[in-house]
């Protein structure tokens, strides 16, 4: 399968279709047995996750991976790449530079929180957030750096209706305003319908069909895959 | 040295290695059992071996019992101490992380060792004075004690195998080691099985401790010193896998003894460490494959 630049591609399919596995492979958490993955013509197969990050490929997790004993702000500030303060010696000796960078990153984080409209949670411990807020935080982390493509693993799972609408809006805004490309695994068909074009259907480890959600709904094979033989 | 002599010498060292391997195996079995079920590295296991050895001393010296009666006594007493340790300490930490359990077992190791020192004093002790003449087969020397250790270990391993495969509690132990959650939804009283696991692991450790005392001498730090080879054996065999633990024990024991032919005997423990690190780097699941 391929994901077009600037698109919001949906990835759907029944449980066990292999969607999350595909994500894990694309994001460098698993190594494929065979086959290649290319990011704008560059072969990135088998690169570890932290290197892919620097190539602009980011991911979120189905079960939010927040740093629970750290504040929301800190959660975001972990992300920016090339922080001088991440080296022991510069933290100790070039405190001024580090401080300046920290201030920049902090401003950036605050912007992100504003964008997501959760700035009231800035100093809350991430572990205390609701499921939906954690999802927003996951999304927020991807905004702390320049991304080319963001893989979202079930951004809607466990999120209530109102927050879901907002999440959808945020994703669309990121797509149109900042030019993010998204690939989204999601079970909430409403969300997929609202956001994604095109949609890829997977079943039993293979791509079954691809196209517009409207078409797919009338596709026999897709219906069968969901309802079972 | 001519070739024949070398072979004899080599086989002689192998015998020493098997004896040491048996002792290590008995410790590694317990470490492996506990890791399989409770998922933490039990650092007090070596000191449980020492404790068993000293209980044995009580049987031999104070009660003047014959050796075959000393074993059940010392193993039972050590099992009770292990059970008490679980009830008073480990049980309260079960819901915390394995790492915290590990640290608490280091604390327990300290307590056991110092308790031994308080009761029996810090000096070396032996079970029996006097030197027994070794049997000699084709130039190979083997002491009766060493034969007893090998034979005794074999009996214990067979008994353990029968326990794990023929009794309800033994099967439940294996079930828990496979999948604690599933055991729970099957209605198995996991706390009771854990309790038994401690008793069995400690009994094996006690036997290993007595053998260690027979083979060398008793002193309060004997268990701590052998802890590294014991862990190395459990890891080399595949942690959580009992037969792996036995195999790993023999491997570590034999290689440790063989190493004395090339390097200074003082560095024997380093050999165990080296095998362990090699294993961890190249085959983390161990020889027979263990848990993750």
């Amino acid at each position, binding site marked *: 399968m391929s994901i077009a630049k600037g698109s919001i591609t949906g990835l759907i399919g029944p449980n066990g279709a292999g969607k999350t596995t595909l994500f894990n492979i694309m994001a460098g958490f698993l190594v494929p047995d065979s086959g290649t993955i290319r990011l704008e013509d560059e072969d990135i197969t088998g690169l570890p996750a932290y290197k892919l990050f620097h190539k602009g490929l980011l991911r979120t997790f189905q079960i939010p991976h927040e740093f629970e004993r750290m504040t929301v702000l800190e959660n975001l500030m972990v992300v920016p790449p090339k922080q001088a303060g991440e080296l022991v010696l510069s933290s100790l000796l070039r405190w001024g530079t580090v401080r300046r960078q920290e201030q920049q*990153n902090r401003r950036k984080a605050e912007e992100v929180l504003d964008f997501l409209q959760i700035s009231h949670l800035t*100093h809350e411990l991430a572990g205390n957030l609701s499921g939906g807020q954690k999802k927003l935080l996951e999304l927020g982390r991807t905004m702390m750096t320049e991304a080319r493509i963001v893989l979202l693993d079930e951004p809607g799972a466990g999120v209530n209706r109102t927050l879901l609408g907002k999440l959808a809006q945020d994703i669309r805004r990121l797509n149109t305003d900042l030019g993010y490309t998204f690939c989204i695994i999601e079970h909430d068909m409403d969300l997929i319908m609202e956001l994604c074009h095109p949609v890829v259907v997977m079943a039993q480890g293979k791509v079954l069909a691809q196209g517009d959600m409207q078409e797919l709904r009338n596709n026999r094979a897709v219906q069968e895959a969901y309802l079972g033989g | 040295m001519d070739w024949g002599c070398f072979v004899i010498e080599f086989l002689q060292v192998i015998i020493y290695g098997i004896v040491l391997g048996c002792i290590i195996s008995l410790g590694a079995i317990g470490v492996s059992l506990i890791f399989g079920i409770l998922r933490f590295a039990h*650092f007090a296991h070596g000191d449980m071996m020492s404790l068993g050895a000293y209980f044995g001393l009580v049987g031999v010296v104070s009660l003047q019992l014959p050796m075959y009666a000393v074993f059940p006594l010392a193993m039972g007493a050590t099992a009770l101490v292990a059970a008490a340790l679980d009830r008073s300490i480990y049980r309260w*930490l079960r819901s915390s992380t394995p790492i915290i359990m590990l640290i608490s077992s280091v*604390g327990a190791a300290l307590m056991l060792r110092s308790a031994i020192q308080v009761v029996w004093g810090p000096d070396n002790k032996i079970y029996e004075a006097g030197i027994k003449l070794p049997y000699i087969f084709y130039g190979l020397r083997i002491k009766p004690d060493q034969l007893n250790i090998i034979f005794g270990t074999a009996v214990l391993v067979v008994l353990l195998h029968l326990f794990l495969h023929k009794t309800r509690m033994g099967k439940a132990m294996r079930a828990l080691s496979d999948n604690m959650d599933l055991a729970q939804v099957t209605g198995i009283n996991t706390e009771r099985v854990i309790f038994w696991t401690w008793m069995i692991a400690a009994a094996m450790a006690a036997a290993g401790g007595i053998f260690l005392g027979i083979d060398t001498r008793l002193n309060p730090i004997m268990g701590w010193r052998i802890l590294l080879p014991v862990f190395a054996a459990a890891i080399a065999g595949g942690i959580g896998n009992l037969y792996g633990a036995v195999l790993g024990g023999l491997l570590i024991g034999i290689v440790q003894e063989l190493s004395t032919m090339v390097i200074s005997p003082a560095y024997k423990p*380093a050999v165990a460490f080296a095998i362990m690190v090699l294993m961890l780097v190249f085959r983390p699941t161990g020889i027979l494959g263990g848990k993750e």
Partner: protein
Amino acid sequence: MELAGLLTYFIFFLTVAGIYAVLSLGLNVQWGFTGQINIGVAAFFAIGAYSSAIVTTEASPFHLGGFELPFLLGILAAMFASGFLAFLVGLVTLKLRGDYLAIASIGIAEIIRLFLKNEGWLTNGVRGIPAIPKPLSGLTESGDALLFLLVILAFVFVIYMALERLYQSPWVRVLRAIRVNEDAVQAAGKNVLRFRLEAFVLGSVIMGVGGGLYAHFTTFISPSAFDPMFGTFLVWVMLIAGGSGNNKGALLGAVIIWGVWSGTEIFTSRLPEMWVTRASAIRIFLVGALLEFILIFRPQGLLPEKPPKTPGTARSEKSGVSPAAGRADT
């Protein structure tokens, strides 16, 4: 006279507590910040002590030496040696799960112990290295101990301040994140292994400093000084009792636990003759029991870890009204 004796004892007490404070600060970097279990603190402690001793002592037929470098270079050597050892250990073990590091670290400690005992050409074996110079000694008539205490306190202060600053830094922020969720740190583009290795090495370097200070304090070292009880376990109890993850906790733990340890000595020395030989064992038993007690009833220690203040021009800090901010900062 009584008072002078008390004062001497007090200086001695603080000096040792200070050395322990350095060790427990080092362990705090590994365990408190990063969640690494190093049960071989004694090894890095010993390496530090021996390195500093060897490069600062006069030539001796019994061990390597004769460099007669100044005290500070000795400490530098201690840092380098223990850091290098940590680097090697870390390369091999940090990819593995936490409990394997723990097991490997007792292996390292054991090997270092054997090495120090058996390589007589280097360390004079069990007979140890005597006549290690004590800095600033002989400057005053009777104030050597006090001056040396000041040296120790200066080291503790510098290390403490550096770690406090680090604690505010992005570096520790990543470490704390790794402790909670490694995958997410990977997904945020950080090379987790690099951070772990750095933390392990830094912690060990600090332990090396502790070793160096110890060598110059006692002026005589031998392998028996670095047994696991004093070199490793006491340090662990100190850190856990004081509060893992909190530098102040590491300091407090060192003072309190050393106090408890020395205090029980006063008590046990009054025991009847036959018990005196066993007194040390009883005290170790109590330390073990104390550790269990803390783990069960107050696992966070006396001074629990608290999130650092995030630097920057916080609007909430300026306005100072955000209720959430208030909660997070207390």
